[in-house]
């Protein structure tokens, strides 16, 4: 087991290097640092000195991959690629355009993101599984049929609509909770209710339908027929046998997103004014802060890879038939 985990972690390293290579190509090769400087400083009135200053402030005033003016190993280490990549792996993301340290920002913003993403994730999981079970229990009846119709309709509604509609209905019309904002400590609770509810609803259609599919697939297996043939009531078949076995694909599908919860959600956070990582990313995109976007891409991939490793481990925990060698 430990052996396997170590191997998986080692396998993650070339992938992270690949991710780093892709982001590097995107941010420094497709457009040279000069282009970025010109874009940021304004195309028209920009002097070569201003560009040099901009590049120097960010450490972009070196050759991309290969430095001819240096000796020995420094030919490769005194380059943008090496310096930026090495810093990235040491979680030193540099400074944003407003001068703040990105790594510190990320640390402080993780908690608000998690405060929304975690309840949405847990509540959603419980709610979707419950609905899916009800639909599977009443399969091939009108309950199931209209349930599926509802799911498809929910799936077809833009997530922006849920947020705008929810804000309008609950906050503006009924004045139940504040429209947006965030507080510290327990005070944050009243700000979180609406985003969490909307988050759960907006994911309902696709997830419920998917879980229903898993349940139905499980119910067409032989052991279910055997259980029925033994004379077990349908509810016991469903809850004791089908539910347990269906948890394997459901849990493993859910585990992969757990680390990504830290990233929060782009749209909801910016609509509700929550100072999390999602709104941080959006602000960075809008103000064209390249360093922040690059850091978020790296962080996101890292978390996703951790999620994949956790998924593999969770397989062995929920399904004793699988042994990791």
């Amino acid at each position, binding site marked *: 087991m430990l052996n396997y985990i170590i191997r998986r972690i080692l396998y993650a390293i070339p992938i992270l290097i690949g991710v780093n290579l892709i982001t590097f190509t*995107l941010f420094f090769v497709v457009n040279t640092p000069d282009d970025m400087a010109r874009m940021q400083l304004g195309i028209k009135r920009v002097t070569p000195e201003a560009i040099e200053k901009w590049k120097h402030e960010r450490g972009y005033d070196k050759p991309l991959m290969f430095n001819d003016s240096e000796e020995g190993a420094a030919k490769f280490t005194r380059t943008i690629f090496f310096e930026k990549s090495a810093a990235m792996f040491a979680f030193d993301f540099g400074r944003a355009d407003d001068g703040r340290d990105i790594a510190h920002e990320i640390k402080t913003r993780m908690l608000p993101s998690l405060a929304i993403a975690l309840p949405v994730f847990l509540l959603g999981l419980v709610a979707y599984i419950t609905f899916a079970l009800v639909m599977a229990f009443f399969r091939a009846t009108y309950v199931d049929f209209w349930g599926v119709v509802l799911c498809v309709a929910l799936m077809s509604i833009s997530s922006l609509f849920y947020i705008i509609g929810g*804000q309008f209905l609950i906050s503006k019309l009924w004045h139940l909770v504040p429209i947006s904002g965030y507080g510290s400590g327990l005070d944050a609770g009243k700000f979180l209710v609406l985003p969490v509810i909307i988050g759960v609803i907006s994911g309902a259609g696709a997830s419920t339908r998917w879980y229903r599919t898993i349940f139905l697939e499980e119910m067409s297996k032989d052991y279910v027929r055997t259980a029925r043939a033994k004379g077990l009531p349908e509810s016991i078949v469903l809850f004791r046998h089908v539910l347990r076995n269906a948890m394997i694909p459901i849990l493993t599908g859910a585990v992969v997103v757990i680390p990504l919860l830290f990233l929060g959600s782009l749209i909801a956070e910016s609509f509700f004014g929550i100072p999390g990582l999602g709104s941080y990313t959006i602000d960075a995109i809008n103000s064209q802060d390249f360093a922040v976007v690059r850091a978020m891409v790296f962080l996101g991939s890292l978390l996703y890879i951790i999620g994949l490793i956790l998924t593999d481990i969770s397989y062995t925990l929920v399904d004793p038939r699988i042994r990791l060698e």
Partner: protein
Amino acid sequence: MSMLFKPVILWTDALIYLLVMVVLAFVWYVRRNEHMLAPWRRVGHSASGMAALTVLVFFIAIGLLDTVHFRPAVENSGNSEKVYSVEVLSLLDVIAEPLRTRVEKTYSAPFAAHLYARETIELPDGGQIREFPRLQFGGAHLQNPAAQLAADVTWRAAAGAGLGVLVWCVLVVLLSALLARRDNERFLPTLSAIRRGATEIPWNAVLVTLVLILSLLGAALALSTHYHIFGTDKVGQDVFYQSLKSIRTGLVIGTLTTLMMLPFALLLGIMAGYFRGWVDDVIQYIYTTLSSIPGVLLIAAAVLMMQVYMETHPELFDTIAARADLRLLFLCIILGVTSWTGLCRLLRGETLKLREMEYIQAAHAFGVSHWRIISRHILPNVMHIVLIATVMDFSGLVLAEAVLSYVGVGVDPSMISFGTMINAARLEMAREPMVWWALLSAFSFMFTLVLSANLFADAVQDAFDPRVRTWPLKAGKLQRTGRGEDPETKPVAAAVKDSSSP
């Protein structure tokens, strides 16, 4: 000899024409092969699928009309040289000329005859009053809007809808006559068979959808000549016109992205599964790496870089429309590059299975070349996966466009799309009194498009997926097992949706 207009083929136009030709060739090919026709027949038997297709056909027709672009000639008599406007128009713009050109001053509600905000008006006697000024075009034909408006709107709507129903009746008669002739039946029994749903293709579902569309369309057309039926936006542009224009953007994103990613996914997926060994390792490494970057972030980063690139290369485009179009194309490419990994993984798995099949082993033994085995024996047998992935991705991509445009990494701000409409209107909810019509019409058009795409995709999946099983016990029409929703192979559109809704 000078022309009245100069045809313009934008990048996405050319690709759409290509796509239309590919689809037509595919239809022609399928019609000649019974074994390929069979699953399509099953699609044709699905009532919800056919009703959804009817709606989709209308959307596609509007999208295609909006694809034929040209630059009209500017009238200047002195010069012998013809000068063409810098404005690029489409056929839809010409048809919707009244909608496009009748621009009010600012916001006005649907069916309003007055502006939405009070303005100070100078009276002839020098005094000033604050009131809601009359609209320049909306309801301008009415003498006394307060008294006449409701009756006028009702009458026009009824007339338009009536005309739509009339057209529908003609279509019903034509269809029955055609079917009766084909089956050597009498006219009336055929008509009643259609009504009962006893025909092979569920024509009753199609016709019910059609009568809804035609009456709504008739009413909308009759009203939009004299009113802004969905109101006007901040700069006084007709919201109905904007909604119509958004359709093409949504369709382009939904279809061209797939067109962009198919070559990657097909080539690499089949190669990985077929050759195995180091080829497989390399390709697996590439797609694992790409798919481990969260979709939205990769798209955001790529679009950001594209903006810089377009900013520093202004020579790539000559008009604003060309610029917006190029950006749309880049967006499709970026979405395609980030979304081929899921399909590639599926294709690799399927190819791994297929290459061990006896008929392929036999082909090997006969010395058939790799290329021929792939193109003759493997490719046709993975096409159902490609088709299902294509239709399943479509609706997700349309939804993703809105989210991306909101984030600021979507289409060009000058291009009308559902995303830009929502983005422009989202602050209007906070206004007092509230401006709701732009949001509502963007959302309802998008909902209709996505819902019908989803229903059609379901019908296609049911018909093509060999894993679909019907429930063995009773009336199993509702029971099926899904695929392609494996979380590890989730397409990028779904990933975008996920991170937008926590």
